[in-house]
């Protein structure tokens, strides 16, 4: 647990994810429950960027919540790094649609929240937190409170807060969905650069075809509710990618490929 400090700087050990026939039904009073996930099977390689794409209500957020350990699957196998998921843990970093920073803590205190709560706060971790704030461009906003930050800055602070734990996998639930188009493009650019330097496993939920094609190595398309895996599409665009790639013909073709599966 507190092996964090013993490791050299910024080496992530990406972990794989394995889902087998995962089912989840939300029970309702006196009525038969609504199945949200109907047997999802999926593998994510260590260091892979996988996008979960599907119409709203298809259970992609439910799937992510199961991986994060916030909800439990009714049946099926959920393994992260070979270990069954039994609850939330810091080795699986979660980024939500809203940054969910603690409003009573400064940026700096927010970033150190995880190590402090686990009793793993060492001078080395503090150094690393300072480096991380530099990386996400918030070194000047270290003592600012969340309400004093812009939308994009809050998201980057949330990134730093998760990355200080060196998670083996990042779970992201439409993290840029609530941002305006310009900030959103900036955040996508930021995430691409970050991930291309520190390869960690990412499971990224989105309903935006363009976002999925730009970011993902593979795109898993979920079917309309109850959700099941409809198809898994390889995105053959070369790495490193940049935001400017969205103008190329190859990118447009990749997008069309995804959309065809989505509308099938």
């Amino acid at each position, binding site marked *: *647990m507190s092996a964090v400090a013993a490791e050299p700087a*910024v080496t992530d050990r990406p972990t794989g994810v394995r889902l087998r026939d995962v089912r989840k039904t939300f029970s309702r009073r006196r009525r038969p429950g609504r199945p949200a996930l109907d047997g999802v099977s999926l593998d994510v390689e260590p260091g892979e960027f996988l996008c979960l794409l599907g119409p709203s209500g298809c259970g992609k957020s439910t799937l992510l919540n199961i991986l*994060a*350990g*916030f909800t439990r699957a009714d049946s099926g196998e959920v393994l992260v790094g070979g270990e069954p998921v039994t*609850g*939330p*843990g*810091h080795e*699986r*970093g*979660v980024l*939500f649609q*809203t940054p*969910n920073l*603690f*409003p*009573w803590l400064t940026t700096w205190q927010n970033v150190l*929240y*995880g*190590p402090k*709560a*686990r009793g*793993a706060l060492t001078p080395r971790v503090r150094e690393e937190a300072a*480096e991380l704030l*530099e*990386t*996400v*461009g*918030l070194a*000047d*906003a270290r*003592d*600012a*409170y969340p*309400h*004093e*930050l*812009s939308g*994009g*800055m809050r998201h*980057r602070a949330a990134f730093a*807060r*998760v990355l200080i*734990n060196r998670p083996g996998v990042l779970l992201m639930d439409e993290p840029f969905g609530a941002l305006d188009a310009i*900030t959103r493009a*900036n*955040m996508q650019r*930021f995430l691409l*650069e*970050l991930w291309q*330097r520190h390869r960690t496993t990412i499971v990224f939920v989105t309903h935006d075809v363009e976002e999925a094609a730009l970011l993902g190595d593979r795109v898993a398309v979920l079917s309309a509710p109850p959700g099941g895996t409809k198809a898994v599409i390889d995105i053959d665009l070369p790495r490193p990618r940049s935001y400017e790639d969205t103008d190329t013909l190859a990118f447009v073709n990749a997008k069309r490929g995804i959309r065809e599966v989505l509308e099938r």
Partner: protein
Amino acid sequence: MTTTAEHADAAVAAVPGGARPRRRSWRRLGTGAGALALALAIWEVAALVIGDAVTLPTVTETADTFATYLTKPYPEVQGKTLLEDALISTGRILAGFLLGTAAGLLLGAAMAGVRVVRELADPIIGVMRPLPPIAFIPLLVVWFGIGETSKIALIFFGVLPIVTVATLGALDAVPPDLLNASRSLGASPFHTMLHVRLRAAVPGVITGMRIAMGGAWTAIIAAEMIAATGGVGFLILQAGNYLQTPLIFSGIAEIAVLGFAFDGLLRLLLRLADPTVRR
């Protein structure tokens, strides 16, 4: 390590403080003092026009009376000074308010955490909350006499439902994802409960305490007018019986100062607890 996000929205400087907000707060303080001075000036002019100290004494007359009776007892036989009355009322408020707040916090937290407690307490609080506490004064006098117990009990039963509802509402309003975020950052359920759920509810609880404090002053003044031998309410009633209008105003001014001071303390507490209200 290079900065990946330097081009993002780095232009939005997030350094708090600086010279401008401070100057603005001084200006606001000046405007507030000016408004008070204006109100006093209007009062003075109106008093001079009316020219009858029983209907409306001048500001200077009131200030004189206030200064005199601050250390001189009224009524002269068995009476108390303005200072003593203020201390008596403040003591009653503090005792009832602290007990009521503590009980309200416990009850609110229990209702938020345990479903049975919520289902049991909800209707009782629902019936109690709209009741004006002063309706209970005769009953409390019958039960506890005209001593301190009945006053403290009155404040207690006035404060309790307000703080309970505020605590419950604040705890219910904590977004579940804030708790999930804490858990997935590695905090234990207990740590999350203490440092996130309860912490996030603090500003809402303090706001409830401010509302309860206002109600507590209403209740205590009424109780002191009906059944008491001391306190600011008792003083005002006595002064009214003898047409001592300057003294009535002195008592009212005393309540204003005390009420402002207590609300100021709670506002300070809120500022400490909630960075978003610091301006």
